[in-house]
């Protein structure tokens, strides 16, 4: 049912894009053999973050840790 795609037509994985960009920005090296596990961890993180990312809170909501001058 799926058409066979050539390598050039393969869509880029957004997690690969994030890993590449973040690694550059943070000056981190992600060895090819680690990339799969790093992406898998990020996928879990984003799936969990979806649970609270859109939880409705007012603009005035304060974070839990409170700074004290």
């Amino acid at each position, binding site marked *: 049912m799926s058409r066979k795609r050539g390598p050039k037509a393969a869509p880029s994985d957004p997690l690969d894009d*994030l*890993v590449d960009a*973040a*690694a550059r920005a*943070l*000056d*981190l*090296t*992600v*060895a090819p053999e*680690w990339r799969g*596990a*790093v*992406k*898998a*961890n*990020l996928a879990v*993180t984003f799936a*969990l*973050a979806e*649970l*609270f*990312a859109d*939880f409705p*809170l007012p603009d005035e*909501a*304060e*974070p*839990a*840790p409170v700074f004290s001058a």
Partner: protein
Amino acid sequence: MDTAWAHASEIAAAVTDGHTSASAVVRAALARIAADNPVLNAFTAVLEDRALAKARAIDAARLAGHPLGALAGVPFAVKNLFDVAGLPTLAGSKINRERAPAPRDATLIARLEANGAVLVGALNMGEYAYDFTGENVHYGPSRNPHDVARMTGGSSGGSGGAVAGGLVPLALGSDTNGSIRVPASLCGVFGLKPTYGRLSRAHTFPFVASLDHLGPLARSTRDLALAYDAMQGHDGDDPVCAARSVEPVAPEIARGSEGLRIAIAGGYFRAGVFPEAQNALARVAAALGAATEIELPQAKRARAAAYVITAAEGGALHLARLRARAHDFDPAVRDRLIAGAMIPAALVTKAQKFRRWYREQVLALFADVDAVLAPATPCAAPLIVLDGVELAVRANLGLYTQPISFIGLPVVAVPVPLEPMPIGVQIIAAPWREDVALRVAYALEQAGAVAASKPPLGRDKQPRQ
């Protein structure tokens, strides 16, 4: 006296009365460590000279008629993220072996020793505390004394194994998302994670600043209370440590659970529970006559937010090490930390705002209840070598602990001595009410519903392949 399975309170009484000496107790502990640690792999350092010198000093003090502390002659050990004078603070890592030896002991070690306890060593742990299994690629896995083929749980794996295996009656661990409560559950011992900010974390290796707690593991509620009382009090070296006066709980625990309103956590805390955890919870609830279920609102989201904050802060803490020497990390920890460093800041900020909302909802529940019961782990100790199917179990060991530490509530994990493996139940109280959780634990112990069961004698101590 046979001190192998004696409680800390019994040892201290015997040393104080002169029925035994601190030196004899400490020598016996060192002998047990020498005999059993090659299999249990709980210790990464044994401090024989230091411990014997301290024991001799206690015995000399007694002969001179000086008053002894509440923990006189009690051998204890600490997770190796505590600073111990003269040792590099490993925090379960290979990288930290190159740290300079710590110039002094962590505050909590000093406070226990000021009460007569004797530090005998440092304990194995999951690398940088980012772990629920007690396994460690550099130092080998901590092994569960009830079945050495099974994991201790983590990350305070050596703490659970050393206490459950009778090597020491008391150990200290740390708990960021469950790292005291998970090994207490899987090893069948008592564990106390106090209120966030209650006990000083000064001079220990951190993980997640707004989630890190320290606390004791022991084989009785009284021992938890004695150690906790000895460690309480403000410490200017930890900016999070609350400026509260010491509130001793040891004199309170015998009041038991009378008059306390105890409920069972429903919803999220009932889902995904294995039969042994259901059984343990039912036994504890029945012993307390607890039948009311309450819902901790949005606990699933709370666990998710704790996960994201942990990953992000962990990644940030270790960023320089990840840049310079990623190959020296445990590969599984490294991959989690790298991913954590890449989490967008907006998600972490939202998690911290959600956290305050969740805290307010949960605190409101304590208007109607004094303590809440919940499973400590979804299942009893899994095998150390897991197949792919069971990998999900490993990641889920903290499912029921994370939503509680997320808002810093005090918890006692109590061991239900099921066969073949024990499993724990959490007794959760309102902030600063460790006394309530410990009173309930004591009542359960008196009722015979919970106990640290002795691993079978003459067990096959060889790890199975």
